[in-house]
């Protein structure tokens, strides 16, 4: 039994010219099997795509390719000249003419969609702007409510046979359906964790600050890595798991106030002794507006209550009345200053 097995990590080393002669020998033996040759190219394509040596202008070349195919349709003899002959098709060849037109139409559609690379071929992107929340229903019936400034990537061609997988950047509330064959649902993030579920209600928060998972109903596993090791945390309803960027270990807080933390789903802000500094941060995340607390005394003041503002500015104005501060502008940012 060969202890050192050939895997993707090794091949990646090899492509980066860091494999030893012994390792190369192993790879050579491993490549003797046809299915490994397929794997070789799969991983090669991935490595190339991930660490490109340069980014060629695909757009122009792509359009040229489409035009080439248009001008050299296959119905013709292989070496015949293009385009001109189409105008001279006799009457009884109309079906073929229509077929060419149909092909040209779908090709034009492809080219107007533009060159967006592999990612847009494989995934459908749902995106919200600042201040926007949106509900999306996936092909398996799962409902997702996207909070502001959030992107959700969903496979375009169906979920495939193994796991249902989506990728999240931002914040979203999931209501995941059970499938007959108990297919798991995975939420992947750009951060160091992913969430695996069977069927349940939960929200995932993944932004610059860090990550959070809140479980409302059901059961959820949070998968993360601690250094080299892969670990798993099983959550129960009411649990809030927080992953700060600074600490490696996730923190679990049971009995979280789930309705407060998911108030945004109904476009509400619920504050419970929330410091103004935290409110400023939420305004940034939700509306994209920068709020600077110039006068330190306001940073630690807390606010409690439910707000359903039309805009970030409205909420700020409300707060200025509440705390009796002055709201100033400096370019794009809002400043909270003492009233003179």
């Amino acid at each position, binding site marked *: 039994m060969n202890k050192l097995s050939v*895997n993707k990590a090794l091949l990646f080393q090899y492509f980066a*010219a860091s494999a030893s002669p012994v390792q190369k020998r192993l790879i050579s033996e491993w490549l003797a099997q046809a299915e490994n040759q397929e794997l070789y190219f799969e991983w090669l394509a991935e490595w*190339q795509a991930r660490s*490109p040596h340069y*980014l060629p202008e695909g757009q122009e070349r792509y359009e040229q390719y489409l035009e080439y195919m248009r001008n050299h349709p296959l119905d013709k003899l292989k070496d015949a000249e293009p385009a001109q002959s189409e105008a001279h098709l006799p009457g009884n060849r109309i079906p073929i003419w229509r077929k060419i037109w149909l092909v040209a139409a779908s090709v034009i559609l492809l080219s107007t969609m533009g060159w*967006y690379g592999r990612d*847009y071929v494989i995934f459908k992107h*749902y995106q919200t702007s600042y201040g926007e929340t*949106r509900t999306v229903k996936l092909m398996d019936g799962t409902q997702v409510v996207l909070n502001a400034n959030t992107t959700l990537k969903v496979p375009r061609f169906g979920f495939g046979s193994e796991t249902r997988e989506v990728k999240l950047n931002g914040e979203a509330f999931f209501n995941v359906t059970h499938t007959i064959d108990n297919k798991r649902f995975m939420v992947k993030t750009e951060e160091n964790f992913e969430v695996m579920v069977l069927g349940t209600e939960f929200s995932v928060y993944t932004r610059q600050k860090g990550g959070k998972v809140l479980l409302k109903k059901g059961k959820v596993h949070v998968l993360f890595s601690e250094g080299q090791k892969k670990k798993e945390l099983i959550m129960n309803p009411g649990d809030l798991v927080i992953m700060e960027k600074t600490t490696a270990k996730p923190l679990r807080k049971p009995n979280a106030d789930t309705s407060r933390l998911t108030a945004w789903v109904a476009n509400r802000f619920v504050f419970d002794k929330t410091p103004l500094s935290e409110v400023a941060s939420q305004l940034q995340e939700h509306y994209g507006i920068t709020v600077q607390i110039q006068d330190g005394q306001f940073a630690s003041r807390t606010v409690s209550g439910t707000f359903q503002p039309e805009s970030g500015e409205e909420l700020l104005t409300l707060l200025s009345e509440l705390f009796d501060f002055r709201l100033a502008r400096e370019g794009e940012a809002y400043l909270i200053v003492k009233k003179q």
Partner: protein
Amino acid sequence: MLSPQGSENNENAASWEVNADDPHAADGVNSAKETDRELFIRKTFETNPQEGCALLFRLYYNPLCSYAVRFLYSKEAAADLVSEMFYAFWKNRSYESVKTSYRAYLFKSVQNRSYNFLASELKNTDSFEIMPQYDVASSERPEALMYFEELASRIDRIVEQLPPQCQKVFLLNRFENKKIQQIALEMNLSTRTVEGHISKALVALRQGLKDHWTWLVAVPLAFI
């Protein structure tokens, strides 16, 4: 209140990315996705080969160019080579005879074409046979598959060992496709000096790869 169900996303806003795969996934998970994808492409070819080709182009044009450029050291040449391959792929209906995955086929084609290109470029006065362009390669000998990386590393090493000015001129001319005049201006050298550096680099490459010529010629033969 909750906003109504989201309609078709406006895809014109975002810019394109290069990579879709997940670094955290275990080796097996991505493979399953890849198989699904290849199957989908195969199905597309059955009804609409133009769309199949367009799809393959969009999926693999970038990584294929990056692959070729490691070998050819020229952005222009790499882009041309990959484009030509896709043109031939369509024109010759090569997609009908692909027994492996399209991805494997396309990468192997780029390998072959790169060998031929480099061979024709570096041939010296005692000329040797230029192999005809093969785009098909069924099951390979492992050494043949791995040879590309070997050669690419060797080329890297030769370029690395060029004296600094020479290397810089070579890369500007070869990789960036800048004209001799332009380089002379940028680097404040005479055009004669620039030309001198370029030929010095080419000589170094020819010398360094000389003992690989028989291999280079022999390798495509295995593809018949």
